[in-house]
């Protein structure tokens, strides 16, 4: 009960900080849309073949933007060393992971939702009929990506030059999640069943989140 209340307090704090500045969500969304734009330049968006690779393009944009978001949720702890206050608090440090994972997932998910309209316009894909499936799959994919990312951003935050090596560490580890998400999205676009991909994605989510939860305490300790 106490644990839940504390996760609530941590999460509310991150939401309030984001509400104050809106910097994290804004830069993440902007970058996500920008990536979609660049990919539209790179692959002629009106050709039929481009639609086949659209799910991959979408997730490239999300993954790039996600690293910014993850970095941001951790940077607020560095600003005036708020993390020290969290480490002193009489609670399990795994709770910090849980709260950061939820906050990171929420922000990245929001950025994805805000990117989708631009994707529709640039690539002329009608996603409205498949929106419910996409919302569900994106949530599962985003959670998995953040499950790994929340651990690794805590790792890279403790290195020299802070977050610069985050993508280099994160992308190889997140390959299974990204592959599953792309496959699921592709299945949705083709009008096929995405249930298999979603199930596997949820299984990955559980595995990654549990392992990261167990390792998180080591990352924070000194």
């Amino acid at each position: 009960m106490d644990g839940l209340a504390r996760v609530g307090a941590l999460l509310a704090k991150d939401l309030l900080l984001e509400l104050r500045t809106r910097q994290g969500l804004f830069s993440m969304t902007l970058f996500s849309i920008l990536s979609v734009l660049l990919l539209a330049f790179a692959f002629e968006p009106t050709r039929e073949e481009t639609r086949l690779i659209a799910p991959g393009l979408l997730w490239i944009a999300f993954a790039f933007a996600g690293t910014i978001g993850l970095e941001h949720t951790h940077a607020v702890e560095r600003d005036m060393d708020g993390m020290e206050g969290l480490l002193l608090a009489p609670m399990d440090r795994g709770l910090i992971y849980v709260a950061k994972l939820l906050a990171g997932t929420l922000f990245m998910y929001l950025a994805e939702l805000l990117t989708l309209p631009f994707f529709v316009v640039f690539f002329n894909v009608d996603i409205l009929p498949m929106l419910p499936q996409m919302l569900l799959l994106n949530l599962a994919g985003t959670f998995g990506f953040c499950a790994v990312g929340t651990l690794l951003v805590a790792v890279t935050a403790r290195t020299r030059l802070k977050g610069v090596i985050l993508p280099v560490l994160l992308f190889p580890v997140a390959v299974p999640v990204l592959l599953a998400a792309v496959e699921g999205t592709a299945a949705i676009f083709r009008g096929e069943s995405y249930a298999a991909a979603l199930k596997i994605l949820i299984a990955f989510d559980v595995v990654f989140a549990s392992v990261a939860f167990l390792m998180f305490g080591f990352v924070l300790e000194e």
Partner: protein
Amino acid sequence: MNGARNRIDRGLILLVGPAMVLNLFLIFYHAPVERTMGLVQKIFYFHVPAAWVAFLAFFVVFIASIAYLASRRASYDRLAEASAAVGVLFCTLVLVTGPIWAKPVWGIWWTWDARLTSTLVLWFLYVGYLLLRSYVPDAARRATLSAVLGIVGFLDVPIVYLSIRWWRTQHPSPVFAGGEGSGLDPRMRAAFFFSLAVFTLLFVVLVRLRMRLCEAEGRAEALLDERRRSL
């Protein structure tokens, strides 16, 4: 103690050097040339043992990382670092020799086969591991952070392999599976297993030398710190 270690290392080097020469002899003179693939098949006597050593090395990183977090002994951290560095070296060999073989046999440099692709992801993972280490100046923190990555990375390996096999495999399993009844010439088999043994021995030697280098680096760092403090 140092003397004994020196003697062991010298003995191992004296052993592995001639063994590698003998290995070449077995591969190129003793084992017959494969009928359909020809001379290029010889590359498998290097490719497969290198892959074995790479996986062994990353497994050692995993075990050493767990041991470090459990015991906080610097020697486990040195083992993890040395093994990762040697593993990346052999992983690179796998990625170079694979396409050299694939081009004449399959007609393409690269195939999105689960094994090959996971090896590539693995290579990125452990280069990232070494990169992370270079970014953390404090030794204790470096050991802890890289141990976390060493554990998460290795647990990721089977998941990466499965996900790629499910979704990104465009070719059937490679020819050289070595399963039952693959009908390998006994001389080929001898050369292959000898090569496997020599590569493993080479791995041990390289890791040992690399660990000593890590230790020496640590001591040099300590001397520098001492000097800085006394100034």
